[in-house]
């Protein structure tokens, strides 16, 4: 066990962590932050996407012990994120989810795409989203939601 200090959704904690614990397991099992979903547990599906020091990462292929001193934001931490409010609304309006399993990862990725590409084209969204798997929607609604959310966020800035 290794004592690790990290900040999760603005709260700094220190906790004994078993080296083999993935960040995803740590968040879900030890911190009760079950909004981060685990699909494949080997970096293939994108459901467990969280933000680490402002970058999107897959929490199933990050060791919690390696997060010493770093800042993690999970889907629970985005409740007060303004762009995320807009993105969530567009996901709702464009029917960008059905079962909701992939949605936390999709939302984290959507915000990252919009931050890096303020005016994302359909093909940019498709290629940037290719690491996130959804088995319900066929992606069309998700792509439409990200496109329209990006437009609203862009218009608000201008």
């Amino acid at each position, binding site marked *: 066990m290794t004592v690790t200090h990290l900040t999760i959704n603005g709260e700094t904690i220190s906790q004994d962590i078993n080296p083999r614990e993935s960040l995803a397991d740590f968040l879900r099992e030890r911190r009760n932050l079950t909004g981060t979903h685990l699909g494949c547990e080997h970096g293939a599906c994108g459901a467990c996407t969280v933000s680490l020091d402002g970058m999107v990462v897959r929490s199933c292929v*990050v060791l919690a012990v390696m997060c010493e001193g770093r800042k993690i934001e999970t889907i629970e931490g985005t409740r007060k994120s303004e762009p995320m409010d807009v993105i969530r609304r567009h996901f709702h309006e464009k029917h960008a989810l059905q079962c909701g399993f992939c949605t936390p990862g999709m939302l984290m990725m959507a915000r*990252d795409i919009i931050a890096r590409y303020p005016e994302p084209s359909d093909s940019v969204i498709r290629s940037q989203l290719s690491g996130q798997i959804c088995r319900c929607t066929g992606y069309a609604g998700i792509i439409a939601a990200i496109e329209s959310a990006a437009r609203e966020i862009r218009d608000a800035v201008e």
Partner: protein
Amino acid sequence: MKSAAFQYSRPETVAEAVALLTAAEGSAMPISGGQSLLILMALRMTMIDRLVDISRLPELRELRDDRSDVFIGASTTHAMIEDGKIPDPSTGLMSRVASRIAYRAIRNLGTIGGSMALADPSADWPACLIALDAEVSIAGPDGQRWEKAEDFVSGAYETILLPGEIVLGFRIARRQSMRWGTAKVSRKSGAFADSMAVFVEAAGDGLPRAALTGTTSHARILPRVGKYAQNRSILDPGDLRAAILDDLAEIVPDADAYQLRCHVATVSRAITDARAS
């Protein structure tokens, strides 16, 4: 899909990391981004007793622009290279290659040093770095040494690293009026390449270098292709194809018809891409 138990160390110096890895006699592995290693461990394809976290060692994070060449530390992530946050000796080639590796969430953590040291037979960086004729800086129990990237990777998941050694980074020369091209075929965007080629040529700088990966072994230079492309501004498609097939016969003798078509396509496209720029 969870890894078996292992010990974890976070040394503060390269010397300490090398000592830990040497003492473990092959049962320890260095980890930086972990974007391949942690997956292999979760799938129980590799068993490791100790992970030595080298992701924070300052020597491996170094980025140095020495005018005639550039040093890129091993812990530099694909995303940093994609975003142009490094001094670029390659006039955009490295950024293009980085942007096509896996997915952004993987690129944010995965490192150029890890890609090279793990030597996956379909990894992108070995092909790019041998095409750029990079040199690899290696630290080990007997001190530091430099090796050519081309000699570094020796097979599928095989390198010339000795027990206890780690990659510190890469030295890449700046070249005059360099042209480059690259092409990749994968089953889906972000998947490992079925075939990926990088072509680099520079004025008065010897043979153009065509590198190929996605074979069952390691990334290799195609010498006959380089020789054919040298000093020829207009390439005959039939002759080029013959040169590629000659190299492939030697490098991937076991390739089937589909693989051969992929390799011929990526090498040809990489050259066309370079010549169009």
